[in-house]
C-alpha cells in the first residue's frame, strides 16, 4: 500500500464510519460498533505513519490546485504524526465510553451524535495531516461546524445559547483574525506550505511580526487563550463524551496544534527568536495559566473546574510555542500527548460519576471514593499526570517546558509553572480527598455502567505506564524541531 | 424639473407622485430637445434651398424617451389602481397605518 493512499484511507475512515453508522441507524449496537472499528483502523494507520516518520518516510498527497502557490495537499509533519496518534487512539476509548454514557444517561438523537463525532475526528485527523495552512484552515472550520451539533446536543435553551457562543467565538475569530493572517502570509511569501524552519524568514517585515503573531493566536480561538476562552466553559453543557472530545481529543488540541504548527513550520522558531516578537505572548500565556487556575479553584461543578484547568494547560503549550526555544517547543509538542491522555481520563471519570451517581458537584462527592474505587483511582492517576508528578507521563512535558523557559532565561516563567503546579494539586486532587475522607450521611443509588468505568481506567494506567516508554514518543518529538 | 422632483418627494398621494414624475421627465425632454436648436436653423428637411437646420437626432432620441415615459406613467397608474383596489386608498400615510395594523 503506497503511503499516499494510506493517508487518504486514514482521513476517509472516520467518514466511512459515519456513513455506516447512518446506514445502520436502526440497529444501535451495530451503529455504535463502527466508531470502535473506525478507531482501530485509524489507530493502525496512525501508528504506521508515526513509525514511517521515525524512519524518514514521506507521506504526501496533492489532490488539486486551489490557487496560485496553494494546493490541496496532505503531508504529514512530525508534529502532525503525534497529533494524529493521539486523536485516533483516544477515539477508540471515546467510542466505547460514548456507548456507555449515552445509553446510561438516556440521551436522545444518538445517531446524529455518533455521526458528528466521527466527522469531528475526520476533521481533526485532516488538520493533523494537512500540508499547508489553508487546508488546515478548511478543516479547522469543518471541525467547528461539526462539533456544533454536539455542543448543542440537548437542544434546550441553555445548550442552544452555549452552542451559539461556541460557534460565534470560534468562527468569528477565525474569520476576523486567522483568515486575514493566512492571506497576509500568502501575499508576502507566495506560499502557505509547511516547511522546516518556516517560510517567513527574509520575506515578512520584521516590524509587523508581533501583529501577525497576535492575529494568529487570537484567530485560532480553539487554543482558548484569554480573553477568548469563554466558549470552552460554556460548551460544558454538552454530554461528557463531547467534553472529552472538546478537551482532550479534538477541538482544543486542534487549536494548540494549529498554533504550534504555525510557529514551527510557518513562522519558524529561529525567526521568532530573532525578532523577539512573541515575548508579549509569553506573559499573556502566563497570565492565562494563573488566572484560569485561580478560577478553577472557585468552581464547584466538576466539569467547569476541569474546563478551566484545560484553559490553563493549553496555555502551557502556547507558552512553549511563544518561548520558541528548541526545548520549549519539544515540551509543547509532548504536552499535546500528555495532557490529552490525562484530561480525557479526568473527563471520563467526571462523566462516569454523573452516569452512575448523578452527581456533578465536587462538594457532593463525599464518601463516593469507596463506592466507586475504580473511577476514583483512575481519576487520581490522571490528575497526578496533569500535575506533573513522576512517574507519570505528564512530568516529562512539564520538565521540558521548565527547561525551555530556563534556556530563554525567563526565570519568572519557570516560577509561574511551579506555582501553577501547586494550584493544580489543590484543585485537581480536592475531589479525591473529599471522596475518600468525608463520609456521606444519605445513601445514594448507584447505577452500574461498566462501559463508562473501564475507559478511564485504561487511560489512567496509560498515564503511568507510558512514563517508562516515553522514548517511543520522544523520537518524533525530537524531530519536530531540528 | 426641480418642481417635478419636489412633487415626487413631498406629496403623500401616489397619483400626485406620478404627475410629478411626468413633469420631471418632460422637463428633461425639453432640455434635450433644446440642445438640438441651431441658430437660424429650420426643420431638418432635405431640400437644396436650406443649408442650416436643427440637429434631428435629439428629437429622435426623445421620441424614444417619450415612449418610455408614457410606458412608465401607464405602469405607474396601473399600479396605483391596483393599490387602490387592495388598500382602498392611495395616500401614503393611510397605507402605512393599514400595514402597521395588519402587522400586529
Amino acid at each position, binding site marked *: 500500500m503506497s503511503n499516499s493512499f494510506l493517508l487518504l484511507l486514514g482521513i476517509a475512515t472516520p467518514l466511512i464510519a459515519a456513513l455506516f453508522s447512518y446506514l445502520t441507524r436502526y440497529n444501535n449496537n451495530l451503529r455504535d460498533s463502527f466508531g470502535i472499528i473506525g478507531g482501530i483502523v485509524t489507530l493502525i494507520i496512525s501508528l504506521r505513519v508515526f513509525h514511517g516518520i521515525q524512519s524518514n518516510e514521506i507521506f504526501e498527497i496533492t489532490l488539486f490546485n*486551489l490557487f496560485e502557490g496553494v494546493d490541496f495537499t496532505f503531508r504529514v509533519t512530525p508534529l502532525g504524526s503525534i497529533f494524529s496518534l493521539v486523536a485516533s487512539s483516544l477515539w477508540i476509548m471515546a467510542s466505547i465510553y460514548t456507548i456507555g454514557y449515552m445509553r446510561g444517561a438516556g440521551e436522545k438523537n444518538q445517531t446524529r451524535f455518533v455521526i458528528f463525532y466521527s466527522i469531528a475526528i475526520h476533521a481533526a485527523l485532516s488538520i493533523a495531516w494537512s500540508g499547508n495552512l*489553508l487546508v488546515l484552515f478548511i478543516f479547522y472550520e469543518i471541525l467547528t461546524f461539526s462539533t456544533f451539533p454536539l455542543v448543542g446536543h440537548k437542544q434546550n435553551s441553555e445548550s442552544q445559547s452555549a452552542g451559539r457562543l461556541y460557534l460565534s467565538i470560534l468562527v468569528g475569530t477565525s474569520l476576523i483574525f486567522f483568515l486575514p493572517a493566512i492571506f497576509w502570509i500568502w501575499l508576502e511569501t507566495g506560499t502557505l506550505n509547511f516547511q522546516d524552519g518556516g517560510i517567513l524568514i527574509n520575506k515578512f517585515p520584521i516590524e509587523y511580526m508581533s501583529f501577525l503573531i497576535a492575529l494568529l493566536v487570537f484567530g485560532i480561538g480553539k487554543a482558548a487563550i484569554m480573553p477568548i476562552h469563554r466558549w470552552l466553559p460554556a460548551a460544558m453543557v454538552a454530554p461528557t463524551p463531547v467534553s472529552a472530545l472538546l478537551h482532550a481529543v479534538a477541538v482544543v488540541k486542534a487549536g494548540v496544534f494549529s498554533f504550534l504548527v504555525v510557529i514551527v513550520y510557518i513562522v519558524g522558531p529561529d525567526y521568532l527568536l530573532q525578532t523577539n516578537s512573541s515575548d508579549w505572548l509569553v506573559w499573556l500565556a502566563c497570565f492565562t495559566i494563573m488566572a484560569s487556575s485561580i478560577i478553577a479553584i472557585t468552581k464547584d461543578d466538576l466539569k467547569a473546574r476541569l474546563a478551566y484547568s484545560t484553559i490553563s494547560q493549553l496555555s502551557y503549550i502556547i507558552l512553549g510555542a511563544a518561548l520558541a526555544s528548541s526545548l520549549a517547543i519539544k515540551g509543547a509538542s509532548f504536552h499535546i500527548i500528555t495532557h490529552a491522555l490525562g484530561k480525557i481520563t479526568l473527563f471520563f471519570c467526571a462523566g462516569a460519576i454523573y452516569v452512575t451517581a448523578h452527581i456533578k458537584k465536587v462538594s457532593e462527592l463525599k464518601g463516593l471514593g469507596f463506592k466507586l474505587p475504580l473511577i476514583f483511582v483512575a481519576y487520581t492517576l490522571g490528575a497526578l499526570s496533569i500535575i506533573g508528578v513522576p512517574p507519570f507521563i505528564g512530568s516529562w512535558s512539564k520538565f521540558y517546558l521548565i527547561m525551555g523557559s530556563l534556556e530563554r532565561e525567563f526565570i519568572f516563567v519557570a516560577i509561574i509553572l511551579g506555582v501553577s503546579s501547586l494550584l493544580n494539586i489543590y484543585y485537581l486532587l480536592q475531589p479525591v480527598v473529599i471522596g475518600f475522607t468525608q463520609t456521606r450521611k444519605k445513601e445514594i443509588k448507584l447505577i452500574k455502567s461498566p462501559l463508562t468505568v473501564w475507559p478511564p481506567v485504561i487511560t489512567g494506567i496509560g498515564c503511568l505506564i507510558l512514563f517508562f516508554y516515553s522514548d517511543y514518543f520522544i523520537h518524533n518529538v525530537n524531530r519536530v524541531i531540528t | 424639473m426641480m418642481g417635478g422632483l419636489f412633487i415626487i418627494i413631498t406629496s403623500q398621494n401616489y397619483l400626485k407622485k406620478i404627475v410629478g414624475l411626468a413633469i420631471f421627465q418632460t422637463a428633461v425632454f425639453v432640455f434635450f430637445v433644446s440642445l438640438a436648436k441651431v441658430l437660424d436653423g429650420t426643420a431638418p428637411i432635405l431640400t437644396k434651398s436650406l443649408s442650416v437646420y436643427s440637429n434631428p437626432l435629439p428629437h429622435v432620441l426623445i421620441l424614444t424617451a417619450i415612449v418610455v415615459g408614457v410606458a412608465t406613467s401607464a405602469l405607474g397608474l396601473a399600479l396605483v389602481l391596483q393599490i387602490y383596489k387592495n388598500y382602498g386608498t392611495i395616500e401614503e400615510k393611510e397605507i402605512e397605518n393599514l400595514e402597521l395594523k395588519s402587522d400586529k
Partner: protein
Amino acid sequence: MFDLFLDDAPALVVVLPLIASAIIAFMPSKIWPWIISMIVLVFHLALSLHLIEEVSISKIIIYEFGNWEPPWGISFKIDGVNSGLQILFSSFVLISTFYSRKIFLNEIEAEDTGKAYSLWLLAIGSLNGIILTNDIFNLFVFLEISALASISLISLGAGLNRKALLAAFNYLIIGAIGATFYVIGAGFAYAMTGTLNMNDLIIQLSQYSDGQLAIFAGMSFMLIGLMVKAAIFPLHIWLPAAYSYAPSAVSTLLAALATKTILYFFARLLFEVFIIYENYLIIFLDFILFPLSVIAIFIGTLIAVYQDDIKKLLAFSSIAQIGYITLAFSLRDHSGITSGFVHIFNHALIKGGLFMSVGYFAILYKDRVTLSSIKGFGYKYPITSFALLICGLSLIGLPLTNGFISKLYLFQALYINQMYIPIASVALSSALAVVYFWKIVEQMWFSDIKPKPEKEDPSIYFPIWIITISIILFGIYSSPIIEFSTLSADYLTQGLQK
C-alpha cells in the same frame, strides 16, 4: 443560411427574447410560454457561446444596427470586458427559467402565466442589451425596459402579499428618477460632444482634456443615475422590498443579474470613458464610492442580522455584497477591477442559489419565509436545505467555495493598495454573515421539531443543485472566472496605463 444568423448574433441575443416575449404575451396555455422561453434561451446560450468564440479570435466585435455608422447609428460591442458576463448571463437565465416553471405555477394565477413569461423574456432581453450596448442613450432605453418589466413582474407578487404593489411602485418612482438623472447626464455629454457612441465619446471628450463644468455635471448625473439602478448605498432603498415581495422566481433573476449588469456598465463607463478626467475619477472613487462602499458593507450586514424575513435578510446582504464590488472598483487598478468582476460572477451564483432555495421553501410553506417558519426544514426537505447550506457557506466565504475566491482576490487587491481598514471591515462583515446565516441553519436543523422527510420536486431542486455544484466547482477550479475577470480588467485598465 445558418451563417446569416450567426453574423447577426449580437443583435439576436437581445432581439430574440424580445420577439418571443411579444409572441407569448397572450398565450392562454400554462405550459407553452415556458416551453417557448426555454427554446429561445437555449438558442440564446448557443448564440452567446458562438459570440465568445468569435471574440476570442477577433478580440472585439462591433455590430452596427442597420449598418448606420456611429455616431448616428446604435452599435453593440462585445470584447473582453463583457464576454464573460454574457456567458454567465446566458447560462444563468436558462437555469432560472427552468426553475421558474413550478414556482410561477404556485405563485401566480394560471391565466397570467403567458404574461409573466412575456415580461420575463422582456427583462432578459433588455438586461442583455445593457451588457452589449455601446451607446449611452440606448443604455437608457434598455434600463427602462428592464425596469418596467421587472416592476411588472414584482407586482405579480401581489397575489401573495399586497405589499408587493407598494414595493413595485417605489421601485418605479425611484427607478424612474434614477433613469431620468442618467438621461440628463447623457444630454450634457451629447451637448458637449455631439455623440452618444461610447467609442466616439472617448475620442470627442479627449478634446476637453482639462475638463469643463458641463461635462463634470453630466458625468455626475449619469453616475448618480446608475448608482440608483445598481442599488449602491445609500441609493439602495428600493431594493430590499422589491427583492423580497417579488415572486420567488423573479427575485432570483433580479438578485442574481439585474444589479450585476448595471454594475458592469458602471465600471465600463468609469474606466473606459471617464478615465479621461483622472482627477475627477479619483475624487469620485476615493471620496465618494470608497467610503460609501465601506459603509454599505457594514450597514447591509448589520441590518441583515436583525431581519426575520429571510428574503429581506438576503436582500440586505446583497447590499453589503454590492458594497464589496464597488469597494473593489474604487481601488481603480488592475487587481481591484479583477476582484470586482470575480465577485460579480461569484455573487450572482451565490445569491441566485440562495434565492432559488428560499423561493422553493416559500411555495412549500405557502407564506412568507420567516425564521420561525423554516423550523425543521433541514429534515423535512433535506435536498434543498443542503443546497442552501452550501450556498450560505459560500456567502460567508469559506474555502472550497467560490465565495472564498472572491474574498481572496478582494483581500489581495486591498493589500496591494495598502487599504488595511477595509480589510478589517471585510473580515468583520464576513464574520457577521456567519451570524445571520447561522440563524437560518439553526432553525432548519436544530430547532425543537424534527419532522419526517417529504418529497421534493426534482424539477425545482435540479436547477438549484446545478448552481450549488457550480459554486463548489468554481471554488476548487476557479480559473475560468479568474480568466474572464482578468480579461475584463485588462481591457478596462488600458486607459489607466496611459
